[in-house]
């Protein structure tokens, strides 16, 4: 119907309609509407505390909103009443966090193999094979037997991504995955995510990496105070936004030299 070349193959994989959520007295989400299509890279940007991470947690049923409709890969998440049903959903939706959160007592390989074999009941040999392939993909083959404590932040985060992928998720959520990293290791993590998006993995990113978001996203939304202020193509959000608040935010973050260094590293 529209000019977009992908229209005929596009099916919504995530849809949020008028989602409201509060923690106690604090209203975090005040009516969020989002549609994310299969195979898309979707970035959520905005100031801290604007509800970005909470949106991801709603999609993954880690938190339950008070009202609104959430549909993820055919499942009405808002209608799930039992924890066991939410667990079934989480197995299909990968999530990677800012703090990597690898299991420190397991080797890199065991971190990746644990959930597919113990939680999904996948075959051990096949999963180990898959894990080694994923480690190769994130360029950490030689670290299979290392423990997380022996890796740098960037390496741990790449393992965390491989661990999420080992569950063969239908989409992956990235929650500020480079925010805890030093500037030099950000590039290696973004490189992995960029690859993943090129392979067609539906990815939803909450990020402060403006240049990266601009480069890889199909759609970008800007959130503030629990609302979506604007959404559009990266071009629209980063360059032609009418809203002065967005222009201020984007201009303030992407102007520095850090972005340039990362860009050079990433490509």
């Amino acid at each position: 119907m529209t000019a977009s070349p992908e229209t005929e193959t596009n099916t919504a994989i995530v849809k949020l309609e008028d989602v409201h959520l509060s923690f106690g007295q604090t209203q975090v989400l005040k009516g969020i509407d989002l549609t994310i299509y299969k195979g898309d890279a979707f970035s959520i940007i905005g100031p801290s505390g604007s509800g970005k991470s909470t949106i991801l947690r709603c999609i993954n049923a880690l938190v339950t909103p008070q009202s609104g409709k959430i549909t993820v890969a055919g499942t009405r998440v808002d209608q799930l009443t039992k924890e066991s049903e939410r667990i079934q959903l989480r197995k299909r939706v990968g999530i990677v966090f800012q703090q990597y959160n690898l299991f420190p007592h397991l080797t890199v390989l065991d971190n990746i193999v644990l959930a597919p074999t113990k939680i999904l009941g996948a075959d051990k040999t096949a999963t180990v094979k898959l894990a080694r392939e994923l480690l190769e993909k994130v360029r950490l083959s030689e670290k299979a037997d290392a423990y997380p404590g022996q890796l740098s932040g960037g390496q741990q985060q790449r393992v965390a991504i491989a661990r999420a992928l080992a569950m063969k998720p239908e989409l992956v959520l990235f929650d500020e995955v480079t925010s805890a990293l030093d500037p030099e290791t950000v590039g290696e993590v973004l490189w992995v995510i960029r690859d993943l998006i090129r392979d067609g993995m539906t990815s939803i990113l909450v990020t402060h990496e403006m240049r990266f978001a601009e480069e890889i996203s199909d759609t970008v939304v800007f959130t503030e105070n629990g609302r979506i202020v604007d959404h559009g193509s990266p071009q629209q959000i980063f360059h032609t936004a009418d809203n002065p608040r967005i222009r201020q935010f984007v201009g303030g973050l992407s102007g520095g030299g850090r972005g340039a260094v990362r860009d050079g590293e990433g490509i």
Partner: protein
Amino acid sequence: MQDMNLTSLFIELMARLGLNYEFLATGYEAQIWRDGFLTTLYLVAVTIPVSLIVGLIFAACLTSNRPWLSAPVRGFVELTRNTPTLVQLMFSFLVLNTVVSNMVGGAQNNPLSPFFWVVAVVGLHVAALHAEAIRGGIEAVPSSMIEAARGMGFSPFEIMRYVQIPLAFRSSLPAIVNGLISLVKSTTVGNAIAVSEITYASIMVWTQRDNVVELMIVLLAFFSLINFVVARVGSWVERRLAIPGYGL
């Protein structure tokens, strides 16, 4: 006969030092004493795993968000921690055991022996100590790591089984070893209800022979040796489970 000679040689040598081990040459008292060692070792061997398994279950209950699980265990832990083991044992044996006897129609039908009550009381007492130590370890697991596991589809039980307990066990290991050392010593309360462990057996012998010092030396050496082994095994496990690059 070789054995006999060694025993008499030992008695002879000790006599020169002024120590009276003559009872070793008798059949009956020597037998009681030897059985006492075995009973103590048997008590320790049975009570240690009981305390560890129950301690783990208690810790899981204490940290569960279900009040019907955590409240009774919390009550039990407080009660056990704050009252003397000897009193608990007497209460269990004189009251609970009698109740059981009445329920099954007489003491002759009661399958629960004094040995059982020592294992139960000491085991659960130390389990309460383990539980507190493990609970501390479970609560020290960062909430972000638990959220990550939830995000991957782990159930609360699976998070406990694969993430919290492996980490909590490591961090609480020094406290657990302390608990086990105190468990070994606590098995001596069995003498109060006539479980013929080594202190009971020693008392039997020295009331006849008046050789308290002689038996005390062996008694102290025996418990020191058991606890030396417990501590060594503990630090071996600690080394084996140490996580490279992690502060545990």
